[in-house]
């Protein structure tokens, strides 16, 4: 059976390691795929038939295609429109928070938070989406919000 993957989209090596460590401590080590720019993430998410994304952890500031555009294009695509997407961002701009929820982010987690909190939040998000098999709900006023 094709295992559901956690796709980490993060250009900062340090932040990617931080997220991987948080997932490892929550026993998700074998599910992780890391991509380092928006174009690579879209290629993997939209075109790679053998990868079944169970959760996308998405940074906003990415090379080539930014995270918000990745989010919008993933939501428009039949294959990925219901994949849970959680934005992990260090942006202090309130408009980024709004734009991501309006574009269909399931959650928005603001970095930096201390490692214990980060590990807890990332672990709980991964547990929820990979263990419950819930499907994100659609809302008519914002494309997809959870």
């Amino acid at each position, binding site marked *: 059976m094709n295992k559901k993957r956690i796709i980490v989209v993060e250009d900062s090596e340090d932040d990617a390691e931080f997220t991987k460590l948080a997932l490892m401590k929550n026993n998700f080590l074998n599910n992780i795929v890391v991509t380092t720019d928006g174009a690579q993430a879209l290629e993997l998410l939209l075109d790679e038939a053998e990868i079944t994304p169970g959760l996308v952890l998405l940074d906003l500031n990415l090379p080539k295609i930014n995270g918000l555009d990745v989010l919008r294009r993933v939501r428009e695509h039949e294959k990925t429109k219901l994949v849970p997407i959680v934005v992990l961002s260090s942006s202090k701009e*309130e408009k980024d*928070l*709004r734009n991501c929820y309006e574009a269909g982010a399931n959650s*928005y987690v*603001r970095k930096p938070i201390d490692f214990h909190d980060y590990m*807890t939040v990332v672990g709980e998000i991964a547990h929820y989406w990979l263990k419950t098999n819930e499907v994100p709900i659609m809302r008519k006023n914002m494309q997809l919000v959870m």
Partner: protein
Amino acid sequence: MHKRIVIIDDDAAHRFLYKHRFKGISDVEIIGEFESAEEALSHIPSLNPHLVITDYTLPGMSGIELAEKLHRYPDVKVFVVSGHEPDFLKSLTEAPPNYTILPKDWSKAVFDRILNACN
């Protein structure tokens, strides 16, 4: 003092995250969780919570409309959590807010604000 919290969010993932964030914190208990403001309003008088944490975007009544209705319970502290900018939400109401608006960003700062209200 033991603090009782009610959570309102139509998103099961976010209710799950709230429950786990508060789990293990002494003297804090989630005593009710609801998917709509209307459902919460019918239970809040009997639950008698210290804190209500509600999403702004809900099916039916919004979190701000709920907060305004809870004005009649002055001992209940209300947090409206949202992906919108705080200034936008404040512009939706003419009444002096009896509630606090927080970003839905799962940051430590947000939970510290909520937990400080528990003290």
